[in-house]
Every structure is written in C-alpha cells, then in structure tokens.
C-alpha cells in the first residue's frame, strides 16, 4: 500500500491500529510500524497529524526493542542451560534434539 496516496487522517488511523495491535504480543507489528511510518514521521514536512504519528512510531520502536531484549535473554539462557535442567528442560521443549544431551 502506498502511503503517499492516503489522506493524513487515514495515515494516523493506520499507525494507531498497528500500535495498539502490537500490544497483543505481536512485536512484529511494532517493527512494521517503525519501518513503514519512519519516513512519514521524521522525514516528511510537518503536518497536523505528524506529531501523533511520531509518538506512535517512537513507542512502537521502544516496545520492539524491549521484546528483542527479553527474547534474546531468554533464548540465550534456554539454549545454554537446557541440557543441565534435565527434566524441566525436556518439558519446556517442543522438539528435543536427538543424540545430544
């Protein structure tokens, strides 16, 4: 969808939808929000709705970075310690690798 053809109110509604949608444990919606609306929020000349779009884009960016931090930490811990956790590690796994602890 080409944002240049949309009127500004619709751009705002779209940005808002993606922002609120990301709260449903969907961080990729926030990533899409940031990438898609980045030009609109920070590069284009100012228009009335741009301030709100800017806040949504900033908050989406923060939320996405938070998700990245949490997931990276959990994945690192799990991959490192799964073998040591024995039974708990197996119960947390969906696919258990064959032939290695």
């Amino acid at each position, binding site marked *: 969808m080409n944002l240049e053809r949309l009127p500004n109110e619709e751009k705002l509604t779209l940005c808002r939808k993606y922002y609120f949608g990301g709260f449903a444990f969907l961080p990729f919606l926030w990533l899409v929000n940031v990438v898609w609306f980045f030009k609109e929020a920070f590069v284009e000349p100012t228009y009335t709705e741009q301030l709100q779009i800017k806040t949504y884009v900033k908050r989406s960016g923060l939320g996405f970075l938070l998700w990245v931090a949490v997931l990276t930490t959990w994945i690192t811990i799990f991959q490192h310690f799964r073998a040591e956790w*024995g*039974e708990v590690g*197996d119960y947390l796994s969906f*696919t*258990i690798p*064959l*032939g290695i*602890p």
Partner: protein
Amino acid sequence: EAAYGQEMNIQFSDVSCNSVAQKIYVELNNTVPCVRLLNATHQIGCQSSISGDTGVIHVLESEADLEWPLSKGPNPPYMVLLESSLFTKSIMMKMKNASSRVAGVVVVQKTSPPEFSPHTTCPNENTGVYTETYDHNLAHCNTTVWNPRGNGLSYEEFDSPVFSLKEDNETEVIKQCYFDHNRVVNGSGLQYPLCAMQLFSHMHAVTDTATCMRRSSMDFSTSPVMVCDPLGGYNVCAFIRPYNSTAFGHKENESVVIAAARLDSRAFFLEDSTGAEGSVSGFVTLLAAAQALREATQEAPPTRNILFAFFHGEVFDYIGSSRMVYDMKNNMFVIDLDNVHSILEIGQVAVRSGTNLFLHSDPVSRRNNTVHDEVGVKCFYLWHASLTDFSQPLPPSSFQRLLRARAIPGIVLADHQTDINNRYYESFYDNAAHLNLTYPSNLSPEEQLEFVTDTAKSLTEVATAVARALFKQAGGNNSQVNKINADPKTVTQMLYGFLVRSNNSWFQAVMAPELKDILQPNPPQYYVGVAKSSHQANALTYLVQYLLANLTGTATNLTQSQCKKPDELPNESTYLYSYLWVQGVVPPNSTQRESFCVRTAVRLVKAVSPAFDLGDYISKEYSTWTKSQWKFIKARIFLVASRDLEMLTLGVGVAVLFTSLLVTYFVRTKADVLFSSVREPNNAAY
C-alpha cells in the same frame, strides 16, 4: 529397530542419476557397528555426528605408529584402520583422548590375540548378591577377581564411531585405495586426493535410561521418534512334571529343584557375539542333561520336580533371572520361592584343565546349618568334582539373584577354581576355535555334524554328572542312576549347530516350518537384543526352545490342524503342555519331510527387567539397560580433495557471482548506450 537405507539398482532410466554417486562412493555392506547402550547412570558405546564422520584412512601398523594420526600427520582428521591384534585398551584410550584428530576407528578381524576380554573385571558387581550389606568383605570382588584380564573396553564411552569389518573383498578394496593414494613416500607430504572413509552411526539416545525413556514418551510432534528400547527377551523353562500354566503362585507340597544355565553373551561389537565358553558350554550341557533325564524321570518320577531354566539377558545385570525371581515373589509364575528346594547352575564348563570340575557355593548363606547341610548333600552327588574354598564367593551366576531373595541352597558348577579360565570372556574371539572344536578337513558339513569331537566328549561327561546329580537331588530311585547317561552324539550335534553352522539337517528337523529361515550358514547371535512388543523371540531362543522340546517332549500322532487346537481332543491339555509342529527328517528315499506334532512342557517366559514394568528407571535393584535407536548405519569410502582446493573452488564461485552482479548492474545502467534502438516502446517499458 531401524531401517537400513539400501540403494536400488534400477535398470532403466534412473541409471544416469545413480551412476555419479556410484562413481564417487564405494558402499561397505558387511559392517558391524558399536552402538550406544544406556543404564540408570551411564551411557556406553559409540556415537557419530548426525552427518557422519569423515577421516583420511590410515592403516595402523603398530602402537608406535599412532603418532601419525595423533600428532604428526598433516591431514587430520584420520580414520584409523586397525587389525584385531592392535585392538587393545591402551590404543583405544589414546585415540579416544585425541578425538579432534581421530574421526573414527575401524577394526578388521584377523588373528586372535592370546587373551582379550573387553568386559569388566567384576561382572555384574552391583546386581549380584554380594553387596555391602550382604557381606562387606565379599562385595566388589574384594576376595576373588573373576575376570582379571578384563579391560572394561565394552563399558567405555566413545564419541567417535567404531566399526568392525571382516577380512573379505571389501577390506581388500579399502587396502587397495589406501596403498594407491595414502602411502607416505620417503617422508614427504601426502599428495591429495586422499582416500577417506565416512561412518554414519548417529545414536538417538543420550545421558541415561531415565532421560531416553522420558523423551520417548513425551514427544509432542506428529510422528514421535522412539529414542531407546529396553533390552530383554524370553527365558526358556521346562518342568519335568508340568503345572497348570494359568495357576500362578504357591503350589502346596511341591518342591522343585532348579537346573539353570545362561543363554546370552556379548562382545564389544554387539551383533558379533559368540560366547562359546561363556554361555554355549553351559546351556548345551544342560540340554544334554535334560535329554539324559527324560527316560528315567518318565519311568520312575522322582519325588521333587525339576525345572530346567535357561535365562536370557544375564550379561546385562541378570535380566532373565531377576525377572523370574520378581515373578515368583509377586505370584506371577507357576511356583513361588517357597517351592524352590535347591538350585544347580551350570557355569562355564568347557575349558577344563584335565578332568577338573569345581563346585562353587555361597559362604554367607552356608552359615545357616540347614543350608550348609543341603549344599553338602549336593556336593556329595557331584562327587568327582572338587569343592572350592569355603570362604570364596559365588562367581557371576543367575543363582546370585535367587540368593538375593531367599537363602536357597545351591551350587554353581564350573571349570575354574578361582578366576575364570576363559581368556576371551565376552569377546568376539570366544568361538569354536577357542574350544578347540576341530574337525578333520576332508569332512562335508553333514559329516562334521555327526563327528564326535573331544570337546563334545568332555561336555558329555559333565552332562552325565549333572543329570545324575539332579536325579538324586530330586529324590529319584538310586538303582536307576547308572542308567542315566548323556548322549555324545547329541552334544556334538548341538556344538556344531551352535558354534559352526546353525543350518544343518538336525536343526532343520527340530524346527517349525515357519521358523526355518532363522537357520543360517553361520552360528546364531548370542546378544540378547531388545524386547519386542510382539511375541517374537530371537533365533537363539527359538533354537533352544525347539531343541529342549525335542529332547524332553514326546512325539504324538496329531495332525497339523489338531496340533494347533489340541484342546478338542480328550487326552491333551494346553494348560499343561504346549504343542509344536516341527519339520521332521527327510527319509532317504523321498523329498517330503515327515513333520509331526511334539507335546512338550517347554514354555517361553518373558524376560524383561522389572524396572521397566515398575517405571523405575534409576533402579539400583534391577537391570536398567536400554539400547539406543538410530535411523541408519552405513559406511563408505571415497576420494577427498584438499581443503585448499575446496576453498579455492568456493572462492572462485563467489567471485563469479559478484562479477556477474557487477556486470549486470553496469549493463543495466548503461543500457541506453549499449542497446541504442530507434523504437520508443523499448524505453517506455521502464
């Protein structure tokens, strides 16, 4: 267990697809791998990586030559090819420690070393009767080390694959490839391409039995992958006076003498287990004794019953005997421990020095006077065998599991006084040659079957002594005793069938028609194998079952359909007997076999460790051995190029890719200059 990937040579259009692979790889078909076994605490055996382990072939000439693969050689990793005389613990441990440079080991079976036992020095030390609580001084082989030559190689863990090959055409191909490409010329470096071998034996199970059983049962995906299987099989049992097989538990006023022997063996490479002295000597003697007792017990039945018990899985922490004791204690067997009067077990009896036989007993239970007297009586019946030292414990034997449950008087008969005489205990050299089973060279296989060897004569003596002792122990009439004699012809035929060739005319005659495919031109496999969920036993179990049926049962006149449903006849009962339809002999002037129905008291009793029924996978009481599963196991050789050449090829390819991208970019930007054309529509496409 697993499906072998096999290459199909399709004759027609697919030849062009397969032939490139066939030009590169030479598949090795007759390999025996070392696999992974697990128990409650450890994993033993070998593991390869999931995409196979590749190494440049190096044929080891001596122990000093190990320096080449371990440190000096310029093209690691190496695949070390050993002859069987170099397959020693020190060499294997050195290679185990250098696993980054040694990708795997291949053992080629040639001459046997003077002695070699990969088993532990104290077999089954934690599941026998001699624990710290039973007698502190006798635990862990403190007084007598039964297998002093044991180096424990079978119980080590290797993280690279170890395969075994026989000396045949395939080994010649490998040696030829090695001599053509891999030989070091005047100390100078080796020239690529080099001959390499790749071994695939990726095992699924890891850590211990509890982990792999848990993972087998919990897989969430749509096609759950079984990770390991418990070891087990069937015990073969026969009473001389059978009981109703559906009535379990204690039998009033019944006293039973158990005559026991072990069926199974193992080797470092499990599928190559021979076990001539380790197990065959014992159970062949017991089979011959059972035959010798048949007539005497039918004419004048003794007061006590006799149970011939052949236990399977004894090598792996007494699977068969622990199961029987467990069944007896929980009223799942036709008798219970109160019915057991005494036990005579036949251990390893074939390697005798002179005519010596020894009787081993348990010193701890003999502190009780009744037990002591009963043992004394038994020894008296086996008068020409000598007693061992009073304070010496029992050798590893199934009797130990019965003692763990109840102080039963018993004797283990063996050819060794202190440590065992078997130089090749639980190894693949414990074969017919070890027992000096030699036949004159001009005999055909059928003549060899009938030829009575010296080993057979020696075992016949033992069998006669055992049969007479059992008869007297069971309260038989003394006047009948001298008529009990084992038949040397039967013994030699059994030795031939179990150690040289199982596909012979006698074995064919005693087997059932649907089982005749288990008879092969080589001896049967003595490894216990995994417990199958269907009622299928392995070849050894069926052979012993049908032989015991033939030697102790009676031939009947029933037809084949009557043999399947004998209950409809008035005098037959499937509660007491089992009815087996066997092939019979081929009479001289015809081609049809004279099949008949045998009525026998022989039964197969399930022998799986109680730990798996109880779900206690960390049990210290029972065997917890399992074997890992795998997808495929194969080996192949091919020529491999140097690393530098591979990197160069890759580099050139990447360079070509980038060059082509650049060229495309330039052509695109200067398209209007390069493809100047008058026509408008071409430009409008942009």
